[in-house]
């Protein structure tokens, strides 16, 4: 029965391949079909989540029926089960949003790319094979390239070009890393690599790990490898931007975490972590500073998102279980908040014809529900208690302190202060500046936004069950010994 | 013995590379590519013989097809026929 | 000569493809043959319209005979051409006298024209530069006659007597 979790991969593919055929019969059915597929995907993801969290055991999908490391396996542990659900749900909501947000043709192609972006991220977080990770990373990246350029403006193309060039360099070096690891161990399965990690030649291992992380860090938007991100975020269709921020970057972050921890036996591991902490820190600082005086709100959110991603990376690189759990929690919270924020900003841009901050003046009067949603999201990101992000920031602080990284704490403080500055400016513009006629807000989108708002507040007020889940998810990445034990490795040993 | 021929043909490929790098016109370079691909096809067939594996002949054939169409594509592009 | 029937063209295409398949697989394994037949039928169905105009008409004994006879003739021309090339290339003085000349052909069939053009290209000192209607423009490495008639006599005529039979 658990093998049916492979539907998580099969369904989006099936959906994407079916669209060209569907289009021939009814062009108008494509977008509703997209919503339907993402809805079913959410259902499957919910089932998988339930399965994993009730049994407490990961689902190991054996593609082709071959046991790893001979075959490729999917490892849907606590992390993947959780994030598969996040991805599916976010995709579903954004598919709903797309009904309204996407008017540029060819929509059937958009729907296909949309599904494949979702597929790519799903694959990245669930695969148990390092080359398969590369394949899913490329699926994600290439559909992201296409979607970034989808609007076909010069700027969109420019953004996509930057993404392609940087992503291309990243993926090439990632593959060099794979070649090094493979050349040294003769296997690609992550659990197998973890099991044999002590056998790798230290020089090779160090270079290999560094290159793998380098490649992933480009997609994970770590400074200074993230220069593509603000442009892509700004120019992609609004639902896509939300997806980038909500889960695409998270998938890369996860992959980074997974790769780091399966190779934790490698000599010089600590210094790689330290390097990553430095990168993460710079990501936070530069991201926040760049957001500070942005006049385009979407771009501002993009930088804000990058800064949060830096925090997540720092959490990943703390090298402790608490750090990972906090990091995962922050990923989760950030996914919800940024899905909401980009949805809202996109909706505003659609209704009012742009995302410049001037468009947001008087938004409280024009689009009160949207303005409210943005406000809640902003307040949450700043780290106000009783909103969800507060808890993950607290956990990050605790984890950093436990790991003797006191200055990370100062980082979070400073970052939050800067966040507070620019978000308050936005909130002020929305509620206390400008006038305007009330715009009829879409009921469906209002519902979606309020759902996310409710989620933010529910987690803020009652974080326990979520935190428990996050700790399990964090331990899923951290506890490599358990990971190796969970994967039914065939005895192919040197 | 086959190795000698392999070397001979490889030398011819290297020689024709001179024209590729030297130019001076784009047409010269494409001609060089055309010749190089033809020579390489022969080289591949000889390699198949060297390794005694007929399956490599398929590779040579695929290569010949792709190279041919590629060269024509370049030519048509140069001419403005695309 | 007009187009042959669809059936004729289809069968001719399938036959050609099937023979090529046999060559490709170099095998009479029934599995290969069967699959080859199937593929020939499918690919033939997709492509016969562009592949041939005359269909089975190509296989008339006269044409086949002339075609067989043409092979050694052409090969010999080609070897001569290459010796000529070798001479010009290896000769320290590089003896050439190039130019573009025009020839006329009596061929009207496209495949025939293609065969003529290819033949010209592969034989002594000439490359087909362009074909417009019945006018062939030819780059000649050692121009011996600039007039259309003279050039035609030297370049196209020798092939045409075969090609006319095979393709017209």
């Amino acid at each position, binding site marked *: 029965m658990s093998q049916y979790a492979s539907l998580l991969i099969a369904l989006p593919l099936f959906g994407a391949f079916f669209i060209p055929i569907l289009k021939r019969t009814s062009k108008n059915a494509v977008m509703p079909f997209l919503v339907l597929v993402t809805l079913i995907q959410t259902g499957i993801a919910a089932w998988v989540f339930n399965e994993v969290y009730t049994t407490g055991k990961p689902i190991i999908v054996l593609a082709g029926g071959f046991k790893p490391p001979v075959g490729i396996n999917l490892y849907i542990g606590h992390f993947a089960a959780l994030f598969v659900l996040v991805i599916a749900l976010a995709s579903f909501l954004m598919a709903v949003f797309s009904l309204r947000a996407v008017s540029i043709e060819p929509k059937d192609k958009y729907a296909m790319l949309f599904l494949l972006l979702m597929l790519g991220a799903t694959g990245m977080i669930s695969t148990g094979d390092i080359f398969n990770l590369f394949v899913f990373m490329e699926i994600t990246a290439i559909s992201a390239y296409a979607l970034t350029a989808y609007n076909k403006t010069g700027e969109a193309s420019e953004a996509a070009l930057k993404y392609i060039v940087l992503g291309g360099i990243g993926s090439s070096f990632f593959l060099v890393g794979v070649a090094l690891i493979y050349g040294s161990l003769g296997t690609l399965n992550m659990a197998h690599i973890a099991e044999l990690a002590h056998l790798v030649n230290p020089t090779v291992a160090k270079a290999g790990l560094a290159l793998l992380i380098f490649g992933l860090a480009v997609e994970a938007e770590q400074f200074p490898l993230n220069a593509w991100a603000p442009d892509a975020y700004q120019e992609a269709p609004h639902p896509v931007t939300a997806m980038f921020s909500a889960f695409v970057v998270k998938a890369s972050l996860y992959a980074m975490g997974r790769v780091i921890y399966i190779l934790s036996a490698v000599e010089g591991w600590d210094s790689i972590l330290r390097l990553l902490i430095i990168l993460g820190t710079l990501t936070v600082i530069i991201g926040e500073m760049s957001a500070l005086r942005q006049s385009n709100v979407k771009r501002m959110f993009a930088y804000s998102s990058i800064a949060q991603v830096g925090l997540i990376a720092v959490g990943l690189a703390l090298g402790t279980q608490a750090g990972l759990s906090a990091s995962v929690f922050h990923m989760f919270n950030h996914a919800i908040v940024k899905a909401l924020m980009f949805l809202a900003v996109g909706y505003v841009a659609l209704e009012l014809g742009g995302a410049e901050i001037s468009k947001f003046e008087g938004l409280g009067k024009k689009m009160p529900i949207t303005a409210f949603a943005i406000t809640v999201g902003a307040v949450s990101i700043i780290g106000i208690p009783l909103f969800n992000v507060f808890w993950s920031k607290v956990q990050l602080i605790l984890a950093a302190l436990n790991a003797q990284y006191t200055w990370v704490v100062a980082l979070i403080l400073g970052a939050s202060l800067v966040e507070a500055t620019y978000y308050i400016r936005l909130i002020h513009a929305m509620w206390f500046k400008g006038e305007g006629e009330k715009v009829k807000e879409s009921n469906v989108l209002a519902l979606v936004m309020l759902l996310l708002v409710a989620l933010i507040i529910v987690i803020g007020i009652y974080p326990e069950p979520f935190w428990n889940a996050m700790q399990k998810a964090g331990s899923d990445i951290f506890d490599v010994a358990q990971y190796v034990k969970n994967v039914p490795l065939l005895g192919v040993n040197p | 013995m086959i190795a000698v021929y392999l070397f001979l043909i490889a030398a011819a490929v290297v020689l024709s590379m001179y024209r590729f790098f030297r130019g001076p016109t784009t047409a010269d370079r494409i001609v060089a590519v055309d010749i190089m691909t033809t020579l390489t096809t022969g080289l591949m067939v*000889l390699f198949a013989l060297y390794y005694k594996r007929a399956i490599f002949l398929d590779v040579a054939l695929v290569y010949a097809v792709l190279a041919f169409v590629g060269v*024509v594509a370049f030519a048509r592009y140069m*001419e403005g026929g695309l | 000569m007009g187009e042959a029937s669809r059936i004729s063209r289809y069968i001719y295409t399938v036959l050609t493809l099937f023979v090529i398949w046999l060559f490709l697989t170099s095998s009479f394994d029934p599995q290969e043959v069967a699959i080859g037949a199937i593929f020939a039928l499918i690919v033939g169905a997709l492509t016969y319209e562009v592949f041939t105009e005359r269909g089975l008409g190509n296989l008339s004994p006269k044409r086949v005979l002339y075609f067989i006879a043409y092979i050694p003739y052409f090969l010999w021309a080609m070897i001569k051409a290459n010796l000529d090339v*070798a001479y010009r290339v290896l000769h320290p003085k590089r003896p050439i006298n190039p130019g573009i000349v025009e020839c006329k052909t009596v061929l009207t069939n496209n495949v025939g024209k293609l065969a003529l053009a*290819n033949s010209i*290209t592969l034989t002594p000192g000439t490359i087909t530069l362009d074909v417009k209607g019945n006018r062939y423009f030819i780059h000649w490495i050692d121009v011996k006659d600039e007039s259309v008639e003279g050039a035609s006599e030297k370049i196209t005529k020798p092939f045409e007597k075969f090609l006319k039979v095979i393709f017209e």
Partner: protein
Amino acid sequence: MSIASLIGQVLVLIGAFFYVVSALGLIRMPDVYNRMQTATKSATLGSLGVIIGAGIWAIGEVGSYSWIPKTLVIAIFLLLTNPISAHALIRAAYRSGVPLWEGSVVDKYKEAEKSLERVEGIKGNLEEALEEGEKDE
């Protein structure tokens, strides 16, 4: 060494020789047209020699006759396509404006093109005149 091997080897040798000639021609000839003249022909003939030779050689070397049909296919493919690509290239070279070598004696193509242009030009003028006439009505 079997007869087949011998024949095969001789063919390969001849082919390889022409390959080298082809490369030399590519280097030595003064313009792209003459380079094509020499290189294409010898490369094609060389291919026939090398590829078919290899097929025959395989009878002795590998002990299989199954090489011959496939090498034949490759050889014929090259025989058919090399002149086509050469033709496409030379036409492209000419049309993209690569000049003939200064020692060239005649360019009939240029003359033909010019007269063609004249014809086209007259045709164009006529069409314009016709269109205008229609407008007047």
